[in-house]
């Protein structure tokens, strides 16, 4: 009970900070939106290639862009954690009576909320450009859940790196290093069938692909539960692994 209460206060703290610096909401949105605008032009002919799964590239791309944002946005969790670690604010929280895990829970829940808001913005841009999902409002809601959970999983990864290296530069460097290869070697921007064999294999091990595929069936066709549950399984495993690592590292840091 106290865990929930303490987390709630820290959740509010993070959100309040975010509202004071609204550019942080758009920080990670910037690249995905540019991609959305550029790639729908660049790859517009894709749709006419036989085997392309959508009527136009926009419908195909929006799910990929949503996940791209969850992925890059997650890295802010790690840098924010490093800030608290370095400023002494983490220590200040640790000497209070608050449940120490509330520090983690408050942070990651606020970060998931941020990812959700960002996903809503992307979906709205998509709608404005004509990307109407086949599954309507319930489908949209499910898309938000998937993107938020994915953000949670990767957020754990970035917090782990932050706690481990204690430097936001490292978090940024690793983020910069991972983003493009993982993105292009997933089904976010290109159908797997258009890729060389080895890359198709890579996409199968890339968690981004599973999130994208689930959002994409919601966008293009309907509630294909097998794909959706597969996504939940993979993302759930991702969350379990990264959060396990985070809790382990957090214990080490807070003693």
């Amino acid at each position, binding site marked *: 009970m106290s865990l929930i209460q303490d987390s709630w206060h820290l959740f509010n*703290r993070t959100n*309040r900070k975010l509202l004071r610096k609204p550019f942080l909401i758009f920080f990670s949105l910037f690249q995905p939106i540019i991609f959305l605008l550029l790639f729908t032009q660049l790859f517009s002919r894709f749709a006419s290639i036989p085997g392309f799964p959508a009527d136009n590239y926009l419908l195909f791309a929006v799910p990929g862009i949503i996940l791209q944002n969850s992925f890059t946005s997650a890295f802010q969790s790690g840098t924010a954690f490093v800030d608290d670690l370095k400023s*002494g*604010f983490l220590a200040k929280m640790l000497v209070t009576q608050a449940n120490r895990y509330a520090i983690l829970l408050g942070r990651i829940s606020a970060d998931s909320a941020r990812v959700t808001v960002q996903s809503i913005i992307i979906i709205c841009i998509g709608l404005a450009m004509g990307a109407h999902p086949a599954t309507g409002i319930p489908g949209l809601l499910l898309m938000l859940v998937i993107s938020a959970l994915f953000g949670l999983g990767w957020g754990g990864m970035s917090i782990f790196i932050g706690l481990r290296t204690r430097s936001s530069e490292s978090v940024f460097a690793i983020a910069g290093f991972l983003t493009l290869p993982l993105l292009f070697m997933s089904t976010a921007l290109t159908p797997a069938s258009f890729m060389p064999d080895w890359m198709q294999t890579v996409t199968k091990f890339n968690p981004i692909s599973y999130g994208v595929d689930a959002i994409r069936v919601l966008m293009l066709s309907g509630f294909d539960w097998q794909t959706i549950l597969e996504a939940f399984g993979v993302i759930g495993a991702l969350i379990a692994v990264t959060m396990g690592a985070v809790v382990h590292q957090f214990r080490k840091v807070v003693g």
Partner: protein
Amino acid sequence: MVVKDLVKKYSEGPPAVQGISFDVRAGEFFGFLGPNGAGKSTTIKILTTLMPKSSGSVSVGGFDVDKEAHRIRKLIGVQSQETALDLDLTGQENLMLQGHLQRMGGQVLEKRVNELLGLVGLEDAAGKRVAFYSGGMKKRLDLATSLIHSPKILFLDEPTTGLDPQSRSAIWSYLKRLNKEDGITIFLTTQYLEEADKLCDRLSIVDHGQIVAQGTPEEMKREIAADAVSLTIADGLDLASDNALSEARQILRRIVGVTDVIYSGNGLTVYGKNGAFLVPEIVRALDNAQLKIATISVSTPTLDDVFLKHTGRSIRSEGHKEISVEQKKKRPFFFGRKQEVR
């Protein structure tokens, strides 16, 4: 609070704390006085459950720091040396958040927040983001956040470093009141001699991770049992050269009533009964030896002299009764400038 044989080794460097022992009684105002790198912050971090110790035993409020850390956290308020505030939040929001984390809420918390804002003189700035506060305002707000839940034991790591004299004395009188009227036990670290002298019932003087002297300020000063006559020699004589130095010391030691002569890098301190009577003797003796005095001053012993006696290094305190021969350069009354914290 009982600390026994506390040792802290960091992964690199010599041990920061090398087997210190002391105890603090309930309701006491206890000080830890020492220069940069003495191990003050390290000790506070261990006492406040933030850092594991390497060996020794520590209990706070009767609870073991390793096994009952959560109980200790209920009792203590901590102001760390690095002012830890959320810069994006306002002063009021910082206090509210801290209160929430200390399990407070509702009207009780709101009342307490307003009370503390008044106390540290930040009512007008309460709605401003802390990023726009001056260093002194931050320090005061930080103190307020550590008091939000009316802790029984208060840990303060250099709470007045960087404050202007008015804010400093305001904080001093407030801390005194907290201690005397509300009975709060206070553990304070400082580099300011005057602060330790004025506030503390008892204190430890620490240097290089070891306690070099311990007791009440009066006891420690009485231990010196002498007045201190501090003097510097006019330019042209390099006291750092061994010959000149030992010559000057021998001359001074021969004076009747002198108990000790200590060289402290920027001058000599002569200890003896009744300093005012010693001055003419000293002047005469040095004059005969062709040593020209630049400044000379008499004081009753200060904690500075205690530190000097135990470490051979000086932290000259202001407030000496000066018999000035030349205008003496004003020295700050602390151990030297704070280093940038990373």
